[in-house]
Structures are given as C-alpha cells and as structure tokens.
C-alpha cells in the first residue's frame, strides 16, 4: 500500500473528519470513495472491488457492523478497519469477532491510521482467503473463525495472525522468522520470545499436537 495505490471505501458520516480522512488517504496515493451511510456503502461494495474499507460504526441509517457482517456473509474478504468513537472493549471485541481486521478509536492521529492501513494491507498481500479444513479443525479466514472439534475458539488478533500464517500452507514448515515477520506486519513491536509465547497459546486453544515444532527450523500445522 505504501507504493501501490488501492481503492479505499471510506464510510464516515462526520463531514469535518470525513473530508480530512479523504484528503489524507488521497494524498497517500489511493483512490477514495466516501459515503456517509450504510445503504450507499453497501451498494458501492457490490459494484466496486475495494482494497480496503474504513468503516465508522454509528451511521445515520444504521450500524456499520451490519455492513461488515453483510460483506463477510457473502464471503467478501476485503480488509476492514473500524473507525469509531466507541472505546469500550466489548465493542472492540464484537467488531473484531464480526470480521474486522483492526479497530481504531477516535480521535486518532492520521499517521496512526496510515500505519494501521499499511499493516492490514501487508497481512493480506497475496494471501488466499478461504476456509481451510484440517482433521478436527476448521479455519474460516474470511470470518476469522476457528472451530476446533465443533467448538468455536476465540483467538486474539496476534494468535490469529500466527494461525493464519501456519494454516495458509498446512503441513509446510513456517520458520520462526516468518512468524516474526507476520507479527511485525500485524503492527506489533515484538520481543524475542513472542513467537514461542503465541505458539504456546495457540496449542492450548487448538490442541497441543496440531502444531509441530521442527527443531531449529520452525513450525507446521497438521
């Protein structure tokens, strides 16, 4: 995204903020379609393929999450960053569980927005988006759902980033450096043992035997 412009759908009903966001995104070299309501935005997503959606939640004609659920419901994996004045952690968890890729609380710095857009775009670069089925585990990359032995497991954003990378090529070895890079691309500063920490957490949630450690090489999901 840093170099290649994408088409961005901006859904924001506040005129002052919307204008500034539109200009900022355009100045970064992206095309921007700006809508102030759910209905118009939904119509736009059905006719235009966007590279990224910036989505406000409280809109005059409805809830932004309904647009997000509509997109994910029709298997549209366009990355979505929620922009909202709701800072409650329950709203944030609901937003991420509804299929959002990131969540930015107003007011925010435009540089912060740029960084988040870049991070989300990196995660999606060249990545297939589908549902991956392995014995006893189903990973829905679009809706970001993991079902283990018929039970939905809630993963944090970082845990999801690691699982997503491993599940992209089941059985293939993913090096620690690649997972490091994945966490970095996700927008996080990481410590030296971060990969081990998140592998350990994932094993506790999806089963210890499902992620194999290849000593000195990396990890693979079976």
């Amino acid at each position: 995204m840093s170099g290649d412009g994408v088409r961005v759908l901006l859904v924001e009903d506040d005129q002052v903020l919307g204008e500034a966001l539109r200009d900022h995104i355009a100045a970064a070299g992206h095309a921007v379609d700006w809508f102030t309501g759910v209905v118009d935005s939904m119509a736009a997503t059905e006719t235009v393929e966007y590279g990224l959606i910036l989505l406000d939640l409280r809109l005059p004609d409805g809830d932004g999450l309904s647009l997000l659920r509509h997109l994910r419901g029709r298997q549209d994996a366009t990355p979505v960053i929620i922009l909202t004045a709701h800072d409650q952690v329950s709203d944030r968890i609901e937003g991420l569980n509804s299929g959002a890729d990131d969540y930015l609380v107003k007011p925010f710095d435009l540089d912060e927005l740029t960084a988040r857009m870049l991070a989300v775009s990196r995660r999606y670069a060249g990545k297939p988006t589908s549902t991956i089925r392995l014995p006893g585990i189903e990973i829905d990359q679009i809706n970001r759902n993991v079902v283990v032995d018929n039970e939905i497991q809630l993963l944090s954003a970082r845990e999801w980033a690691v699982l997503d990378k491993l599940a992209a090529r089941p059985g293939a070895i993913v090096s620690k450096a690649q997972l490091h890079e994945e966490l970095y691309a996700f927008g996080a500063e990481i410590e030296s043992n971060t990969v081990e920490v998140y592998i350990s957490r994932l094993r506790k949630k999806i089963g210890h035997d499902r992620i194999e450690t290849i000593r000195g090489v990396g990890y693979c999901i079976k």
Partner: protein
Amino acid sequence: MFQTPSMTRKLVVAITSVVAAFWLVAMGFGVLIMQDEFSEIFDSGIQETAERLLPIVNDDLAGRQAGNAPRGVAEKAATNREYLTYQVRGRDGQILLKSRDAPSEPFPIALAVGFSQTDTHRLYTAGTADGSLYIQVADALDHRREAAIEGGMALFFPILALIPASIIAIILVVRMTLSPIEGLRNDIGTKDGGNMIPVDEAGLPVELRPIARSVNLLLERLRSALEAEREFTANSAHELRTPIAGALAQTQRLLAEVPPSLAARAGQIERSLQHLARLAEKLLQMSRAEAGIGISDEKTNLFPILDVVIEDIRRSALGAGRIVLHAQGDARVERQVRPDAFAIVVRNLLENALVHSPARSIVDVYFDSEGLRIVNESAVLDQATLASLTKRFTRGPTQAAGSGLGLSIVKRFVEQMNGNLALHSPATGRPGGFEAAVRF
C-alpha cells in the same frame, strides 16, 4: 456501648418473660385454691373423726370404772407423730381422755359444738346430746401450712425446669418464623450497583411480600436510572470524540499542507487538540466511574481483556516494545466486574507506567488469580507523594504529559469492584521503581 437491637432477642426475652410471669401468677392462684381445698378436706377430717370417736369414747367411759386421772388411749409408747390430737372433756371442762400428743392442759376454747381455731390448731368440738361429754379433735396449723408449701413446691419445681425448655422452644419457633425475614434481609443485602436482580417474592410470607415488592420497584427504578446514566455517558463519549477527531484530523492535514512559516502555529493547535483529546478521554472515564459501571451481575474472564488492552497499547508509539506480560497464556481469572471498567483500569495503569518511566524502559505486567501488578522504572517516591497520587488532578514529581486523573479513576473503579489498589515505591523486590497492585 449500645448493642444493635435484635428482633429475635427482643421477641425471645419478651415472650419468655410473659410466659414465665403468667405461669407464676397461675401457680400463685393454684396454691391459694389448693390451700382452701386442703382446709375443707382437713376440716372434714377432724369433724368426721370427732363425730365417730364421740360414741365410742362415751361407751368406753360408761363401760369401765372411771379413774380420777385422765389417761391416754395408747398405752404403748409410739414413735410416729400424730397429725390429729384429741381431748375428751367432761361437762366441767376436765380432761377425761386425750390422745398421746395432745396437750395436758385443755384446749383454750369453749366447749361449744363446731369449728374453732387457736394460734396453733384448728379444732372441732362434738358433744353428747345431754352435754355431759365433749370431744375436741385438733389439727395443727403447721401441718396444714406444710401441706400447702409442699403442694406449692410440687407446682413450682416443674416450672423451674419448664422455663429453660420453653426458652429453647420459643427461640426455635421465633427463628423459624423469622427465617423469611433473615432470607429477605440477606437477599437485599447483596444488592448494589452490580447486582440489581429482583428479590424473589415466591415463598415469602404475605406480610413480607409488600417489602419485597417495594424493594423490586426501587431496584427497577435504580437500574433504569443507572442505565440511563451509562447510556448518556456512552453517547457523550461518542459526541465529544467525533468533533475532536475531526478537528485533529483537519489540523494534521493543515500541517501537511501549510508553508513552513505557519507549521509551528499549526503544530501548537495540534498539540492542544491532542491534550484536549486526552483530557476529554479522562473526564469521560471519570464520569463512567461515577456512573458506577465497575461491578457486574455476571462473571467475566479478565485475561482476554487484559490481552486486548496490552495488544492495543503495544501498537501505539508509547507502548511499542516496552510491555512484558508475565501470565499463563490460558489464565482464567473470573470476577464480577464489567469488561469495560477493567479495560479502563488496565489502560490507565499501563499509560501511567509508560508515561512516568524512562523512554524505552520495560514495564512489567504480572497477572494471576490474586490480581494485577504493573511495575515500571522510576525514582523512589516518598509515602506522602504516593498517598496523594490517587487524588484528582494530583501528579507526582514529573514533567511528563498527563491529566492527574488516571490513578484516581483506577481507584474509583477498583473500589466499585470490591478490590484494593496499592501503590508501592520502591517496587516489591526491587531497589527502585513504582508498582501499582490491584487485588480483587
């Protein structure tokens, strides 16, 4: 020192006292009636005895030669005490015959047929038709008193044993009767800002139902008021943040577009807006704390919330690469607190630790079933400074940006969560540093 009045104790004391008093009065009446009845029986006894003895004595005296001196009927010495004594007297009052324990002197009463009484005896006098012979049968009043006392004691001693037994019975009955009040009291006692579930009216006695109904109405009104306040706070947050976000974004665009000569002034506006945003954020959090959103009806697993907040702050410029979490990945610590309140607590403690510690220094977060500890590097703070940090708009000896509200917001929320916030400097087990510990 005054003891808190207890309905149970009052009832037990009052009922027991009244019952014991009634018993004692009843016993008194019983003794009086018994004494009266005893008198009738004893009077009947001495009358019967006198009337039966008189013809026998008359025949006996007529059938033998009369001696000059009176003599006892019983020639053989006897050891048993006589309850009834008698004297047989002639027309002139001389004692002709007497029982063994009867006095040698004539009874000091006239020889007239019927009942009479001296200081020591109750007597009955019977006489022959011609008035030549009289018999006086006497019953000692001591004997009658002894009978009355023994009869009274026979009533009194069982009462002595029955009073403690009745106290126990009354305590049991009162407790059983008052147990619905106890249950209702305990139920109402658990109600607070987090638990406003209606009191269960089913099974309550009819006398207590109006109380439960009133409490439920009050809870409903309180719940509505708190919900309205929370809703208002949430809406205020939204309405306040959006224009600040617009102004900040416009200013940052302005900074990107204005010539360098105006950049400094635009930068001042940006910093002012950022400060305003932080202050508005803290004031909104404070208003939420005042709205009492800390506690909840339901239990929440706190670890995922901690994880989300830490992850969020790690991605900011302030927290990037500086937070180390010491906790089990699958830690499950459930408490009856609102997720958003706990998130505000964690965010404020973390921001406080990050802002008031050297740049790029590590902030350690320890989390377990006991609670949360956040430790950062800092110079050692004295006790007076530590004590003042949780007061509103009070800041420690620092030049770092801050509102002076963060720790007071944390304290308010932690109190609502029935927890405890402790500030330590130096941090536990370290020569220096600052530690904020939240225990639930």
